[in-house]
Every structure is written in structure tokens, then in C-alpha cells.
């Protein structure tokens, strides 16, 4: 592979981002290998979401470089629409298009952004709905689905663009506990299929099971990173221990 990114699929070097007076990210270095899953853990406001949004340029970095798939995306010259077509993102609040049916949600971007034919887009959308077990909901509007179903549709909508990288931004945080399982199951399948993913999550048992690497984000810096076992079972840093203890009290480990 090219020197660009040093062989990593995603490579961040010294990434900083501030909103007005608040420095949200401070000198983040992070490498993600192809077909691997990196989980970002950390308290709310630690910068996980902002980090994900910088990777598909929904936010502009103030300093540092980000390389995705051998292409430096932070030099201001990249075609953002084209870049985003290969990076899927799923949000905490699903953000499905409420005025479109499930099927239309899945076919809009392939047709309009990538110029796929209607028939191809429909075929692919139906196949994806089959994969997530929601074929019978194809013609429903999002508001008629449960939160778990909506989030699965949102994942399918991102997958419809056949991305090479998926960014998941606390996708189970808005869900009732009994609906979390179906969404995580889908993500687990994705990981098994070899999808490269960066996942911001509070689900520690999920991170332990699926992640190749876990990064603990603390006030805009990566406090500690390592294998799930290292970070979740034997953290070296005091801050990591404190964070995990708090999560444990919340009953989510």
C-alpha cells in the first residue's frame, strides 16, 4: 500500500477540533486497519461523536491530517460527496427520512448520489431488508417502526451505498434496553463479514466481544488504547479505571 496512511485504512495524525472556546479533540492519533473494528469508549462529551464526524468531513478539523483509504481528506481538495459515498455513518437518533418509505430511504442515495438505476437500487435495497429481517416493512414509513427497527433500517441505508468503512455513533443509546440486542446483532454480523468499523459505544460487553482495538477517549485525547482485554479488564490508567467503574455501576459492563 502507499505510504499514505502507512498501510492503515484510516489514519489520524494530531487531529484537533475546537468549537468556539471548547477544544473537543486535542492531538488525536488513531490508526484503523482494514477489516478491523475499533471501539471508542468514554464519557459523553469526550469527543467520540466529533471524531467520527471529522472522518467523513461532516466536521472540519482545525489541525492534523486524516487519511482514508490512501487519500488525505483534510487538505481541502477532496470531493466530499464522493468520499462520503464510501464512508457510511449511523447516528444515535437514526435520522431516517420521515417523508419516505423504508424502501425509498434505502434507494435515494444510491440513485441520486451514485446514479444507480432504479431497478438496481431496488434490488439491492430489498436484499438489504432481507438481510436485516425487515422485508415486510419495505413500504412502511419510519415513524411506524420501533426504535430498533428504525436503527436497523438506518444501518441498511448506509450499507446501500456499499461503503468501505462504517462509523457508528452510539447507535444503541436512544433505544429501549430490549431493543438493543437486535441492533448489536446486526453490527456483529457486519464485523464478521469483514466491514471496517469505528464504533462509539457505551456497550462494554459488545466492545469486548467485537472490537479488535478499544480506545478510551478522555476530554479530547486518547487516554489509553489496546485490545479489549487490556482496556476493559486491566486498564493501566487511573482515568480509564474510574470511567469503567462508573459504567459498571450503571450496570452495562
Amino acid at each position, binding site marked *: 500500500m502507499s505510504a499514505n496512511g502507512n498501510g492503515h485504512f484510516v489514519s489520524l495524525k494530531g487531529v484537533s477540533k475546537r468549537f468556539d472556546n471548547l477544544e473537543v479533540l486535542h492531538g488525536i492519533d488513531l490508526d484503523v486497519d482494514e477489516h478491523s473494528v475499533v471501539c471508542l469508549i468514554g464519557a459523553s462529551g469526550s469527543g467520540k461523536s466529533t471524531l467520527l464526524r471529522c472522518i467523513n468531513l461532516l466536521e472540519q478539523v482545525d489541525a492534523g491530517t486524516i487519511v482514508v483509504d490512501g487519500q488525505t481528506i483534510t487538505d481541502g481538495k477532496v470531493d466530499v*460527496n464522493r468520499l462520503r459515498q464510501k464512508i457510511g455513518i449511523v*447516528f444515535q437518533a437514526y*435520522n431516517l427520512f420521515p*417523508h419516505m418509505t423504508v424502501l425509498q430511504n434505502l434507494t435515494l442515495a444510491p440513485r*441520486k*448520489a451514485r446514479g444507480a438505476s432504479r431497478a438496481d437500487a431496488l434490488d439491492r435495497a430489498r436484499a438489504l431488508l432481507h438481510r436485516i429481517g425487515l422485508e415486510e416493512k419495505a413500504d412502511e414509513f419510519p*415513524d*411506524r417502526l420501533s426504535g430498533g427497527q428504525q436503527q436497523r433500517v438506518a444501518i441498511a441505508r448506509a450499507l446501500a*451505498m456499499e461503503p468501505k468503512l462504517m462509523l457508528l455513533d452510539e447507535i444503541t443509546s436512544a433505544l429501549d434496553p430490549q431493543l438493543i440486542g437486535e441492533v448489536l446483532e446486526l453490527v456483529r454480523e457486519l464485523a464478521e463479514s469483514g466491514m471496517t468499523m469505528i464504533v462509539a459505544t457505551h456497550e462494554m460487553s459488545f466492545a469486548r466481544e467485537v472490537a479488535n482495538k478499544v480506545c478510551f477517549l478522555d476530554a479530547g485525547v486518547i487516554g489509553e488504547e489496546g485490545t479489549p482485554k487490556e482496556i476493559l479488564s486491566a486498564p493501566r490508567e487511573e482515568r480509564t479505571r474510574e470511567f469503567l467503574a462508573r459504567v459498571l455501576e450503571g450496570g452495562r459492563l
Partner: protein
Amino acid sequence: MGQFLHEFFNPLDFLRAVPTVWNGFLFNLKLMVVAEAFILVLALALAIVRGLPGRGAAPLRWLAIAYTDVFRGTPLLLVLFMVQGFATLDYVGLSSGTLFRNGAIALILVYTAYVTEVYRAGIESVHPSQRMAARSLGLSYMQAMRYVVLPQAIRRVVPPLLNDFIGLQKDTVLITVIGLTEALAGANFFQNDYANFSALTVTAVFFIFLTIPLARFTDHIIKEREKRERATAV
């Protein structure tokens, strides 16, 4: 009271006034349909321009803002006289065709400013996360606008759009002042000829009967959509 009823609600004069007022009313209808068609398109374009991001689009944004400021602030009657005055500068004869055109231009100029603001409110009411989701899929700014933001924005502003449309319908009578024989003018002739105001009542009834079905129709489409897209309350 008897005097009042005789002056405004005289059945015989009602019947006599209907044909005259109706002939004029057709002009109002035509004017309103033509003007509204232009208004809906131009106002949408202005609202989109006004929301364009980036420093490069700033002059366009300013122009759009200046337009709404000027034409929302100027009384319609004044604009009507100015358009008419401007048109007479070239000394063409004032046929009813040019009067119609001038009336339409004045209505379009003023109502486009109002309707731009209605669209803008609708566009801003769509949560930014919708646009973000659309952009994150690789859609361009204009595609996100066209397929995700505008469909949601426009359906939200249908009631206020209808409100302005009704305002426009009623304001079509103002063109009587530049000499076009529309419904109000017809009623005035009648009033002068018969010394009775019932023709005015007839005119009012025409306008009211025009707006009521429109209002019910709007209610109906909104309710249908709710039924289709919204979850049933549990």
C-alpha cells in the same frame, strides 16, 4: 334594520347583480391563478438562495434579503400604482391586457416577498440532522435540499401558504383602482346604477365560497398524510 337589510341583502338585487359580478370575478380568478403560479416558484427560489451556505453566496443572500425587506414593507396599493406608472412611461395604450399584466406583476412582487418568508420558515423547521444524514450519504447540498429538506419543509407550510393564497385572492380586488373591471368594479357599477349595496354582498359571498373549499381541501390532505406516515398513538 330594515333599511340595512334592504341595502345589503335585497334578494332581487342579489339576482340582478350576480351576472355582472360573476363576469368580473372571472378576472379575479384568472389573476389569482396566474400570480400564484409565479409566486410559488419565485418565492421558493428566493428562499433557497437566502439559505445558501458559504461566503461566496453572500451577495446573493443579501439580494434576497433586500428584496423581501423592500416588497414586504411596501403597501400593495403603492406597488400597484408604481408598476402602472412605470408601464405608462412608454405611452402604450392601456388595454385590459396590459392592466391585467400590471396587476399581476404588482401582486407577484409583493406576495413573493411574503411567501419567501413562509418557505424559509419551513426550511428552517427541518432539523439539521436530516440534512446531515442526507449529506453523509454522499448527496450534494442541492440534492439534500431537493429530496430531503424541501419535501418536509413544504408540507409543513401548506397551511400558511394557503393563508397567503387567500390573502392574494382577496387583494386581487385592488387592481380595480388601476381600472380593470373585475368583481369589485362590477359591484361598484351596479351599486351606482341601482343605489343598492347588495352587489357588494354578492362579491363577498363569491370570495368566501372560493376560500372555504380550499381550506377544507388542505385540511383533508394534511389529515390523509398524517394517517399514512405517523405512528398510531398508543
